[in-house]
């Protein structure tokens, strides 16, 4: 059963469609939630809530569009909401995310690339605020477009575009040449 068949079943109220989507996307949902929350229990709650949220809004979902990007944005948003409810992101949620990422030094991209252990990756992410982690996860883990980032983070597309461009320029200055060449490619 492919995604569109599963979504069609779900729109008809058949939970077999939901089960198929859960089996297919639970791993990515859990990992996305974990990378933003950095808490395994919270990640499981968030992933479950995201599937239920998708179930509630499936009537509005256009079956012609791919399910994964829509659903994973729900996961990221649910993760941010969970952090807000838990009091961990309250101070950040009323501010535009990317305005708060002024040329990080060293940049998170470099910190992750240099990490030799998984714990080091988590430490690099933990050094960021919840919204900043969501930005990094959205950009590098989910591969969101500028428009999708704009929708997820609640800031105008132009701001996303400008800030991402600045971040890349900053990254090129700081990275060794061989990595910078990969960036250009």
């Amino acid at each position, binding site marked *: 059963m492919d995604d569109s068949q599963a979504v069609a079943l779900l729109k008809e109220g058949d*939970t077999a469609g*939901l*089960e198929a989507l*859960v*089996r297919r996307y*639970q*791993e990515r949902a*859990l*990992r*996305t939630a*974990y*990378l933003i929350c950095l808490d*395994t229990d919270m*990640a*499981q709650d968030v*992933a*479950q*809530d995201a*599937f*239920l*949220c998708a*179930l*509630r*809004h499936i009537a*509005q979902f256009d079956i012609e569009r791919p399910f994964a990007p829509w659903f994973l944005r*729900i996961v990221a*948003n*649910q993760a*941010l*909401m969970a952090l807000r409810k838990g009091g961990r992101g309250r101070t950040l*949620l*009323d501010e*535009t995310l990317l305005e708060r990422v002024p040329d990080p030094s060293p940049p998170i*991209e470099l910190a*992750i*690339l240099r*990490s030799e252990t*998984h*714990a080091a*990756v*988590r430490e690099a*992410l933990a050094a960021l605020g919840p919204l900043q982690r969501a930005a990094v*996860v959205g950009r*590098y*883990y989910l*591969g969101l477009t500028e*428009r999708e980032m*704009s*929708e*997820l*983070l*609640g*800031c*105008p*597309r*132009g*701001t996303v575009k400008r800030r991402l461009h600045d971040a890349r320029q900053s990254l090129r200055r700081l990275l060794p040449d061989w*990595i910078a060449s*990969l*960036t250009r490619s």
Partner: protein
Amino acid sequence: MNDRIRQKMDEAAAQALGTPDLWPALERRVARGSRRARWLPATRLGWAALTAIAVVLLGSVAYAAAPLVADIYRINPNWNPAARDESHLVHLTQTIDGCTVTLERVYVDSERILIGISAAAPGEMSLAPTSAVLRTEDGRALPFVDGAGHAEPGAGAYVLAFDATSLAERSGLLALDLSLSIHAVPVGEAPPPMAPPAEALAESAVAVALEPLDATLFGPYRFAVRVPTGSASQ
């Protein structure tokens, strides 16, 4: 490079999480949710009765909200003070999933188009418009500029402003197509922002806040209207 960053993040998350199966717990939660809906009518006659009651209740609320829309035109000092009196009464109503939206008024001048709407739904939810897009006859989306509103549990009135400076000087009828959705969240939670789609944002638009995705979303609602340009009439 992006692939390597993604891989490192993926491995770190995988190591921390293991391979839990969410489906058993989710299946139980879905089953609990289905049981909660058993108060709904089981027969067509029951649904008809419930619909009739809802129409009466919502009609009353929507009628009460109409004057409120007119007052909201006064909130924003940047809007033409005459907008309230010179706006065109439209009063087109659409109901989706029990939530009724009424396009109350439209005001057009050379700088902006102000759209006055009201919304009503059963229950004690806070309602707010979102994803509002106003298109001209040729399909062009006019940039969303700002909005104002007043919401009470189960009802609300709002004015949305769109930039009309790109419209050529014209006279006669201006055809407009409005689409929007309505967010409903429990009273006490932060009200959802009036968030238009990204492509409809003006460059100068203020950044919007995160949308609470656990809110109920009604719509999209679509209204097609033709309003006279130049001197307005009621």
